[in-house]
């Protein structure tokens, strides 16, 4: 490359770069606009069916059914849709809310289904990453379409009024309401949360009491195991489940070991009740916990076995689900839990399916309850005559 050749060569090189810039921009721009169309098409389709719509049945039946259903006034506010009573008696059915996770089909929308009655699923004009529902209140970890792709926890009460609207630090992972619907807990994955290791990922778990508008972080708890007290530096918390508005179970990870703790919001205290468990879910009668127990496969991959832990006897037994379940289960009643497992999906919209398993009998295989859905949230009501919902 001599100096004499340089000017013309340089011109050609800059021109070549220009061509590459234009082509790359065009290809990427085209792809993004097609992706936007793809997402918008499922949006449009959805708006035509107003806020509630029908997915699994043919179109004519959809219209019929929709006509007989209580459809909200045009362009309903998010709160009014959320507050809409599910179109059947929620106390009698095994109904639950879920998040739609089927590629190209209202992905990420909040939905409701009563599999005992019909396979129809009702999709609401609301996006949630995770959902929980107790006593008529709905908690939704919602992707806010802001500049920085952030999440908000919103809780809507039975009267349709917003009860909480809280910005989330990091990526939401778990959300649970107390049986009364008055207290909410959520976990998010954050990076840079720890001063000691700013670039590693950790969890952040908070409990918000909506009746007195107060938030506590589980980091504030003083945790004991017998005589041992866990210091504040090396603790991570996630996966809360409520017994009532004060008492709860959760996961604590400290010194490389996970344990299940039982805590009190008012007392700011907790104690370790058992080891090697994550993401507990307490049964409606508060007698048992189902949580995931971690082991490592021969390939070095983590395997999460669902186990049931009897709170009276302390006995632990594996459930009849042999696949690895990386989820916090939800109790449908005192004998059945629901959970999500990866299903079919695409790159942009990885699918999940909702499965159910009998907690009492390890011989009964899990059954597929709802394909293309995740984050099951049974609609348990307290004070409505269900004995287990004390």
């Amino acid at each position, binding site marked *: 490359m001599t100096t004499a050749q340089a000017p013309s060569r340089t011109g050609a090189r800059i021109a070549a770069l220009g061509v590459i810039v234009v082509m790359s921009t065009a290809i990427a721009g085209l*792809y993004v606009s097609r992706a936007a169309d793809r*997402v918008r098409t499922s949006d449009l389709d959805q708006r035509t069916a107003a806020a509630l719509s029908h997915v699994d049945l043919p179109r004519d039946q959809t219209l019929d059914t929709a006509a007989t259903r209580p459809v909200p006034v045009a362009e309903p506010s998010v709160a009014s849709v959320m507050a809409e009573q599910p179109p059947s008696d929620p106390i009698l059915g095994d109904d639950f809310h879920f998040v739609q996770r089927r590629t190209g089909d209202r992905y990420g929308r909040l939905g409701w289904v009563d599999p005992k009655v019909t396979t129809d699923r009702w999709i609401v004009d609301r996006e949630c990453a995770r959902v929980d529902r107790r006593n008529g209140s709905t908690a939704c970890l919602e992707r806010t379409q802001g500049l920085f792709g952030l999440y908000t926890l919103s809780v809507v009460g039975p009267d349709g009024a917003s009860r909480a609207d809280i910005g989330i630090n990091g990526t939401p992972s778990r959300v649970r309401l107390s049986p009364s619907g008055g207290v909410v807990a959520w976990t998010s994955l954050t*990076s840079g949360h720890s001063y000691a290791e*700013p*670039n*590693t990922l950790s969890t952040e778990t908070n409990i918000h009491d909506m009746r007195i508008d107060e938030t506590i972080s589980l980091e504030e708890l003083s945790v004991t195991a017998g005589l041992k007290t866990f210091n504040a530096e090396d603790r991570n918390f996630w996966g809360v489940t409520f017994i009532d508005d004060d008492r709860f179970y959760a996961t604590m990870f400290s010194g490389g070991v996970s344990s299940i703790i039982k805590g009190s919001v008012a007392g700011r205290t907790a104690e370790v009740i058992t080891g090697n468990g994550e993401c507990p879910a307490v049964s409606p009668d508060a007698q048992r916990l189902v949580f995931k127990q971690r082991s490592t496969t021969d390939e070095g991959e983590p395997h999460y076995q669902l186990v049931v832990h009897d709170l009276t006897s302390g006995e632990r037994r594996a459930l009849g689900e042999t696949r690895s379940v990386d989820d916090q289960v939800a109790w449908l009643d005192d004998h059945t839990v629901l959970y999500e497992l990866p299903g079919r999906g695409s*790159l942009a919209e*990885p699918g999940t399916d909702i499965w159910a398993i009998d907690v009492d009998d390890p011989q009964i295989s899990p059954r597929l309850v709802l394909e293309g859905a995740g984050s099951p949230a049974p609609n348990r009501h307290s004070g409505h005559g269900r004995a287990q919902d004390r």
Partner: protein
Amino acid sequence: MGANVVGLGLTSMFTDISTEMVTAILPTYLALELGLGLGRVGLIDGLQNAVSALLRLAGGTFSDRRGRYKLTAAGGYGISTIAKLGLVLWGTAVAPFGASLLLDRVGKGLRTVPRDALISLSAHPRSLALAFAVHRAMDTLGALIGPLLAFAILAAAPTAYDAIFVASLAAGVVGLASITLLVREPGRGREGPEPADPTNEARALSAKLAEALGSRRLRRLLLVGPLLAIFSVGDALIYLIIQREANIDARYIPLLFAGTAVSYLLLALPAGRLADSYGRMRVYLAGHVLLVALYVLLAGIGGLGGWAVFAALGLLGAHYAMTDGVLMAAASTVIPPMWRGTGLAVLTTALLGARLVASTSFGTAVERFGSTPPLLILAAGLVGAVAISPSVLGGLEPHSPAASGAMPR
């Protein structure tokens, strides 16, 4: 300004756009969309950093031995671009996705040092700091544009992560094309490349290291750089302190980064010019005086108003403008061209190590005593370190007479 410097600036800008687009959405994508558990997300994070540090040394010594700085750097950019292709093709499966991310870091680790050596060998010795400032400013611009672009795409097409990967690949291709088409291998400044002999690879590598460390002035820099870095905590910690003490909503943390980047962009070129004329180590030490001011400000930020947050971000950006590229420029004047890559690799690795020690011990101290006492101790330590630095360096002359890194023209 050398065409190589602008070419490398463009390369870094597009590559940073490409990388930061993915980084911005990565925790969300891994955890939420791929359904990865916390443990594995953390593992991917940790692996990435370890691989990157090791490969810096390899990239530096390799490029020195062959005298092929452009080739090594372009190879690194190429590997990262192939990794982006991997994200587009296999984004849904966990194992190939993780492998693609790792490959991206391999490319980054390999290219960093040869690229800096290339800048130092291509710029005029009198404007070395300015050259690094131009490069770093374009790099920062890319890091600012990338996340904005990613979130703009997500706003236009929610949940369409594949579109982000495709756009990232496109930006990566432009970056690779920039170095291939615009950057030229600098004159060697030495006899031809050593013959490759794989059996002697390890011995040659350590011989190269020993040679590079033979320079007395480099050894002095290797004392001063890490000495100051021991009192310099990472910006992630500084943002955390600002967020917690000034009680800023957690969702605005990315804006803190953006504020620092804007301050850096405004000040990088003037600081580089100043360093070239007034003395690089003088500006470098002055940049650390600003860091002392930042620590003192942060120690009391809880009781101050919103202006203090802006002042803190301004100080942090100014600190980086006066130190980051300036030290590389200063180092380039004391490392002979033939050991340029190795010398820069040793220096940056020593700095990274010192910063890691600083961040970890400071972090632990903050958890225990709150942020104010550790901040004031750091400020005092840094004042001491800055005070003794001139004597360790043996003077602060504006220009080093010998060992310039000019490309023969």
